[in-house]
């Protein structure tokens, strides 16, 4: 699935990374615990989370995750967006909670 389609399916706003929307993503991991992202992520490309601190971007960077989706209408501070921009990541924000966001992506074939 293209990142562009992820954004569309979640009716998400793109906070940074408009240059990369045609890149393909293959799977997602949904979690508010960065410790678990570090322990269990294996080649997932999208992180869905309700946390918005700087360490979310750092964690995604360490795991080579390209896209972060902030759920439940969460908006990060500008320093978070700036760091993601520097790391050439895509940041999306959706009003949808974690469960429907994950369900929509999964039922549309992401990670299946």
């Amino acid at each position, binding site marked *: 699935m293209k990142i562009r389609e992820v954004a569309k399916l979640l009716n998400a706003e793109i906070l940074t990374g408009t240059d990369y929307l045609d890149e393909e993503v293959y799977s997602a991991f949904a979690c508010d615990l*960065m*410790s678990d992202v*570090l322990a269990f992520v294996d080649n997932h490309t999208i992180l869905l989370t309700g946390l918005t601190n700087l360490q979310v971007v*750092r*964690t995604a960077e*360490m795991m*080579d995750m390209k896209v972060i989706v902030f759920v439940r209408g969460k908006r990060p501070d500008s320093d978070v967006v700036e760091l993601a921009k520097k790391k050439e990541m895509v940041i999306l924000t959706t009003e949808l909670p974690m469960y429907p966001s994950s369900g929509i992506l999964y039922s549309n074939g992401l990670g299946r």
Partner: protein
Amino acid sequence: MDNNTLNIRYEVVAKDFSRAGEASSALKKVLRKLNISPDIIRKVSIPMYEAEINMVIHANGGYIDVDITPETIHVVLTDNGPGIADLELAMQEGYSTATDNVRELGFGAGMGLPNIKKYSDDMKITTQLGKGTTVEIFVNIPA
């Protein structure tokens, strides 16, 4: 120092959670420039990031020395924090003394030290109560 070794030192600032991970990020960039494969980079970056965060949330910052040769990457994180009373216990999954405010930020699940062991080829911890902790991470670069 022989010509085949690259040594880098990073400072880790105390009590500034927002900056935790800057050293790991900087090293990741260096390893990419050296054309080291993404799999090997992850084996270094994830443990180093866990240990760097530990230095900030459990100790008072410190410094990180990295030695890179064509065969190995060796990361040494040194702090003069409180030390670890029971290392065997600290190595167990789920054991954590992290505060609630660290938990709210998504850390402190007690998976850090086990995770360092899981991703690296070898690790070594030396610790002394009241003196500090040194965490060493070893990763081999396959020929």
